């Protein structure tokens, strides 16, 4: 201990204090502060960038899912539209078919009526003509029957015979 104290140099202590304190203040001003500030700034920047990246990633994900939803909706809409169109088309076809059928039936009915009318007219005309022809024939037959006395007599007999039988 005594040796330690005798070896202690006051001069060295003085100069060490001076040099160390000078170094401390110089380094503080010209080195540590700028260095620590730069490092802190950089760390802050890195942290901010990472945060931003994370945020952007989340945003991207949100956007993507949004896009997917949109796509899905669009697809659904398209399907609905197509389905609608198909339905409309088939309905239209159906409608026109029904309309055509009705029209056709109407036409057929009208035709039938006309035919019926024509037929009735034809039949009535035919009846009139047949009656006329019958009269003519009957006249001609009567005239032939009644052309001689014998024949008149035979007819009278026959008629008499028919009446007898009754």
């Amino acid at each position: 201990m005594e040796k330690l104290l005798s070896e202690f140099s006051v001069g060295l202590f003085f100069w060490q204090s001076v040099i160390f304190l000078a170094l401390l203040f110089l380094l503080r001003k010209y080195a540590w502060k700028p260095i620590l500030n730069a490092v802190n700034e950089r760390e802050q920047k890195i942290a901010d960038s990472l945060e931003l990246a994370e945020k952007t990633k989340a945003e991207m994900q949100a956007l993507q899912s949004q896009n997917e939803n949109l796509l899905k909706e669009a697809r659904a809409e398209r399907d609905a539209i197509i389905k609608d169109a198909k339905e409309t088309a088939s309905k239209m076809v159906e409608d026109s078919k029904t309309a055509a059928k009705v029209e056709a039936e109407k036409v057929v009915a009208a035709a039938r009526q006309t035919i019926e009318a024509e037929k009735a007219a034809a039949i009535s005309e035919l009846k009139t003509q047949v009656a006329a022809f019958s009269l003519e024939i009957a006249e001609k037959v009567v005239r032939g029957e009644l052309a001689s006395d014998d024949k008149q007599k035979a007819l009278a007999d026959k008629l008499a015979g028919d009446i007898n039988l009754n």
Partner: protein
Amino acid sequence: MRKLLGILFVLSFLSPKLILANATPEHAGENTEKLSAEEQKRADMSEYVKHHTQDVHDFHIFSDNSAGKHYGFPLPVILWDNGLHVFMSSKFEHGHKVVESKGNFYKLEHGKIYKTDAAGDLKLNEHGHPTVKAPLDLSITKNVFVTLIMAFVLFFVFKGMASSYSTSMSPKGAAKFFEPLVLFIRDDIAIPNIGHKHHKKYMVYLLTVFFFIWSLNLVGMTPFGVNVTGNIAVTFTLAILTFIITQTTANGNYWKHIFWMPGVPVPMKIILAPIELLGVFIKPFALMIRLYANMLAGHIVLGSLISLLFVFQNWGAKGAFLGLTLFLNIIELLVAFLQAYIFTMLTALYFGFAVEEHHDDHH
């Protein structure tokens, strides 16, 4: 990073070899000499080891003992003895000459300057210690000189590092190596020990103290026999600063834990107060002794091992000791970092005690 490691590695190889050049040159064929010569040699070696751990007034690079020549350069001597006395240490001629300055006479004896008379009488006592007065010695000694150089180096390295950030956010050049260390001190020393809230105000001191001690430890690994951090005055300076900063920034909770320990019965509070108060002084004292003793011991062990190379005449033993020296040199490189780390770590721990906030579940 790899480049610097490479340089350190090369340095670790170089230093024992260069120190060999400093050591007493071995004379071939001397092994046939008498025992007294061998003893003289051992005494020289002991002196050599001691010399390399001491602070001196000149920058000694190596000596040629056979020619009695010393190579190096003198440093200024500054004395305060009823007035300022300034002269170069070369005037002492390595303690052989008495220097006269403004009517006073000074003599250099075992690295210490004494005020004597014109004849240089130190009035040695029975133990061989001088009894004359020593003036206040404020000389730029080797340690002061080396510290100044390292302070300049540190300042320019870190100033350069700071300015490299103004051009780009990523570290460049020296910053690539030092930034992880700066972050290590912040994230693994300051924040865990002091806490996130208070660590900022201590960062300047912690960073400076770490790089100051580490650089001076490393400079001690060079073959110039520099032993700044193995000097008690240096470690005292650093420890006293830690002590002052701890006490001046301490909050009420810190003082309460010293003088009126919460959570224990009153008699215990009274017993604990002096113990805790003693602890306040023991903590920086331990810091001072730990760094001083570790660095000094490292230097003594290395110096002794190198000296042993000259004791053995067997080449096998020489080789083995060279290997051992090399190994210890690498260990010392690790110790250089470790001691700087421990000093900084414990300093941060003491700062942490000083600013610790009150916790209910603390005890």
